[in-house]
């Protein structure tokens, strides 16, 4: 693999490319002939609100090969300092908090391609150590002590994991539905309270309150407009006045002409493509 010389002074140690990323070479196993490069940088996003990625202790990693799971990355980066957590994602960005709360059965499946990762160390020193890792010592993914399962073995393992105990699944569903029902109940309570006015009077309306009381929708608006249009059309008289009759005839001829012209042009298109040769 070719490596362009770095402009920085401490190039003998680590390789930092324009953009501030440090290049970490990575090999699948010690006897691999080629290597991938991880691109790492301290995580620094101003708008980051989640507490799961503290700014000073989080390392942002690009180009993680498909055979590296979160555990393996945790293992690999432990050489730089104690790792608190690893989060792998398809693309850089924030996570939806709702997905995190779900049980494992309902979480969206992870992609099987290359991913980006957020490695959180217990102390900021881990980030620094990673950034100054020398460029000529590659990280090794699969070692004799920690063999990584790939190919057939991995798929068999996956298959085994896909077998689900229905009782555990039922339990997960039950927990979620309890939470959901509780949330709904709270919402309807809140609504009820809102409807009670200062003196405790409740406004009685048609229909069920709570879940059914939805915001007015776009579709309903359109439907109402269409209905009115139709009504207006029904009331109109056709071919009643002479001018109307003449108009209809004019329209008819115009229609014929339009079709004629369309056909002519269609033929022209076909002729341009020589579609009239029978054989």
């Amino acid at each position: 693999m070719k490596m362009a010389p770095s402009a920085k002074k401490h190039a003998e140690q680590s390789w930092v490319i324009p953009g501030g990323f440090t290049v970490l070479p990575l090999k699948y196993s010690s006897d691999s002939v080629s290597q991938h490069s991880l691109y790492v940088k301290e995580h620094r996003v101003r708008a980051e609100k989640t507490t799961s990625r503290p700014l000073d202790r989080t390392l942002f990693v690009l180009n993680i090969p498909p055979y590296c799971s979160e555990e393996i990355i945790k293992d690999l980066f432990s050489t730089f300092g104690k790792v608190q957590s690893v989060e792998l994602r398809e693309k850089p960005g924030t996570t939806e908090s709702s997905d995190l709360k779900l049980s494992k059965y309902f979480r969206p499946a992870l992609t099987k391609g290359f991913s980006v990762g957020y490695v959180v160390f217990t102390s900021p020193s881990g980030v620094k150590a990673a950034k100054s890792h020398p460029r000529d010592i590659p990280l090794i993914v699969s070692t004799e002590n920690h063999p990584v399962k790939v190919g057939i073995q991995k798929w068999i393992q996956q298959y085994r994991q896909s077998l689900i105990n229905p009782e555990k699944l039922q339990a997960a569903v039950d927990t979620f539905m309890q939470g959901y029902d509780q949330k709904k109940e709270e919402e309807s309570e809140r609504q009820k309270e809102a409807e009670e006015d200062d003196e405790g009077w409740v406004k009685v309306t048609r229909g069920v309150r709570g879940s059914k009381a939805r915001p007015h929708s776009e579709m309903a608006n359109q439907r109402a407009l269409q209905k009115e249009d139709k009504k207006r059309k029904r009331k109109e008289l056709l071919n009643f006045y002479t001018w109307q009759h003449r108009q209809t005839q004019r329209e008819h001829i115009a229609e014929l002409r339009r079709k004629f012209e369309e056909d002519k042009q269609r033929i022209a298109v076909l002729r341009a493509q020589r579609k009239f040769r029978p054989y």
Partner: protein
Amino acid sequence: MKRKAKKLPASKSAEEVENSDPSSHGEEEEDEEELPTPSKATKTEDHASEESVPRPQKLSKGELYKPPTAEELHQLKEAESLFHCNLLKMQMEELLKEVVLSERRKRLVDSFIMKIKALLQNVPQTREVELNDHSWISEGVKVPFLWVPKTTKGKFHMAPPASVSLVGSYPLGTCTKPSVSVDLSVIMPPAVLHPKDVLNQRYPRKRALYLAGLAQHLRSSPEIGTLRYSCLHGNHLLPELTLFHPKRNNVRTHWYTDAVGPPTPHYNSSLLGDVLPKAHLQFLSAISAQCSAFGEAVALLKVWLRQRQLDRGAGCFSGFVGSMLVAYLLSSHRVSNSMTAYQLLRNSLHFLASTDLTKNGITLAKNPDSKAPTLHEFHSTFQVVFVDPSGYLNLCADMTANTYKQVQNEASLSLQFWDDPTVDGFQALLMTPKPLIRTCDHVFQLHGLVKLQASCKKLNLLGELMDHGGDYVLTALPFILSLLQLGLGKRIHLLTHSLTADPEWSVDSEPPKHKDQTPLSFGLLLNPEHSSSVLERGPPADSPEAAEFRQLWGPRAELRRFQDGAITEAVLWGGSSACQKRLVPREIITHLLQLHADIPESCVRYVGGLFDDVIKIGTGEEESLKVVQSFDDLSRKLWQLEDLPLSITSVQAAHPALRYTQVFPPVPQKLDYSFFEQDKQSRALVPHKDKPCPVFIPPLQVICHMEGSGKWPHERLAIRHVKAAFHIRLGELLRKQHMYTCSTTPTHVDVYKDGLIFRIQVAYHREPQVLRESIGPDGLLRYRDNEEAQALEMETLHRPYLTSTLHGLQQQHPSFGVTCRLAKRWLAAQLFSDEVDEDAADLLVASLFLQPVPFTPPSSPQVGFLRFLHLLSSFDWKNCPLVVNFNSQLTASDYVEIKNNFIASRESLPVMFIATPKDKKVSIWTKQGPSVQMLQRLIVVASESLRVLEAQLLDPSQNQDVRVALRPPLDMYDVLIHLNPKYVPLLDQAVDPPHITFSRGTVPGSAPSTRGLLPVIDFNPVSLYLAELRDAFGHLALFFCDPYGGTVIAVLWKPQAFKAQPFKTSQMSARCVEVSGDEAHSLPNVEAILEDFRIMGDALVRKVEPRMENWVV
């Protein structure tokens, strides 16, 4: 005076064809001269049209509403009333422009004719020699005649012709491209002939010698390119009796008083044909002068005939007969002189469809003299009767009744779709070729035609043989046809045969022998209701017809007692599976030919089920049926389940195996538990890592809609959880109430039943709607379409609907399912199965059955498959939507709407656009693919496969291996990943299955219908590997693999893959960085990627083979 005609296909006898410029093969013209066609201009035009298609423009308002002139009104009215779409009128006009000879070309032809005439007039005189003495003819020229027997008396010498004149279609102006031929009639000088020359074939021999003399002379001229002999309608004349006088007046005497031997009508009419061309030309010119559209109508009719392969060969319905037919309609006032070409064509077809010339012949003779033969007499000697203006010549003398039936059938078929606004009539009528192999359901060939000589003996046809001048092929044909027609009976709609092509040979070679003719092909249009019945029930044993029946079937006829108590004659044919039964007609044909015509089975090459082996059809159809039956049972049990919190509103199948179109339908297998590891907790089998990949058991999707109720939550996550709860419950109930082994996941429940896995998915009809909901900034509830909702609708709505619709189609057309399987096998083998998915492929095949014009719906998988390839290779995807009109739900106005929508938003629509009644605008099934490039490749591969297959099916000399069309060329791919067959579970389904087999954990015996450990479901390392590769490297490369046992994954780098890109955090997958100055660029890390191919497919991948000749980094 005696005359001698030298001409090209429009009339008779030997002829010469010259090619002045053999290199310019722009359009194939076996022509007096081949003119240098403007081929260069054509090519450049093609290019231009590819790039810029003119877009239709709108008329301005002023133009639309200006007051119409009377003429314009008339024109518009005419267009509106005469044609269901004036498009058709204009299309026909354009077509005529294409086929009619241009003025420039006419001038060239004319000048050439002048030269030829001059040359012919100057043939040098030679001395008189004996007829047998050919020494005066130079070595390079052979006499175009089979000189048997050798000795004939008579003298001959060359002399300039009495006259040379133009006859046939060229002077009439009905000559059409591409087979432009100019007929010259050369009248031999009286001095050469002798009054007694009519005897013993001296006349035809002299004619042949004279021709050879002419050929020799023409060869000496530098103006002339190639000279070839041909003979029209395969007429070879052998020495025969008859006192035929070439003078017209003497013909009738012979007709009646042929005292010397049996009547020889065909010989007579062939000689008569020599006499009459000039008279015919005069007659047709007179007609043409009265009707201005005559020429165009004949030209259209000729195109129509040619597309149906009816216009050439022995006993054809030639352009000449066609023009005579139009002349007949005009002269008998069935059509008026003022009609347009369009109307004349239509009326001609109508006349053909409604008139049976085999029973009620027609004549052009106005006032036949009293001695002319009557129509009745014509009928007694000819099968098809159409008498010329002289009253003596039958224009259809050589035509078999079957050929005429074919003409009739084609005519009535054409009329059926002519007025159908949902059909592109022009395409079907005049633009689509109908070769025999793609038209007929089954085809068979007789080769080794020498055997027909014996047939003539066996059939006692010596008299007829004499009449045909010894051409035993033409002699035996009508009798063989009527024999087969009788034997096949109601199993077929139509029996057709190919017309032996007019032989054509170079002047310096011997004329071809009868036995050298191309093999005779026969086509069957099957009647699917009866064609595969194994029983031929005959008359009761004691009835007089019984003897006839026994005579026909010979030793195969036997007495049988039936369930209704009747004892009748019957024949029982073999065949247990559907695919064997489809070949019953073959058994009948070989049996009858052997029995009655002495044609051994080895001479019959039957093409009807050659593809069966490719998808091992032997078991396929029966297995499909079992799968469907098992599903029906499951469906019943689901409906009857008790204790479900909500009731089921529908149970729908959503898998190809449940509509008979799965290429290899799943076969239940008994499993050897010791082969697997076991997961104790869930009582399931798990693949063993040290053993070959276990048998692949596909899950069959079943969609189970639950009733709507207030209990359903109105939130996407909650709905998913409720559905999971339903899956758990369904699994539990099926286990308790029906003892089925089940496996539950949040998204589905798998049920192990009869050795099959049904994957039941619960659906809630409002869920897609919920997925689309979102609340806008203004507080209004909005509905926004998204991929998630579409995918869900596809799975729970569209696919089940499609499945049930196609299931219905299979009930109407028994060969639909097998055709789909063949089509998909081909797609998969050619590595297209990820581009055209199962549903789209089934739709394509369905369109062949729902809108077969100009064909009839396929009644055999073979013809269905060939038409599928033809559809792929010929359909104009760029300009037309393919409409699949299920149950005729779409009306003409729907078609217009679809077309307009399509044109309006062509660019944004899928390249392969398929509309159905439920989907008029979007083409949901082809949204994901194919891409433009892949479609282009698909078209190329399809047309190549079609070409190879059709050539192979029709050529007995070729080794029959239909698999050649299923072996994809791999040399264009950049990397080949070779897989270890041990881990390819569907290895047995490969196009060429390898010799090694692996134990896949099955043992002989039947699978348990209930209980049992849960088998390994849907575990296919190849597809898992492919999915991972596409996830990881989909942005850089395309991956292709035959899902049915393919052991190679072909990789193609994307065109832009190796372009350097600026460093971007979102696009760094599998890339390495290069720094130049202050900028970082990234490139794919090819070396590492190639190694990843191996790492990710550990154990599965045997070898990664980069083909460096195709690419460089």
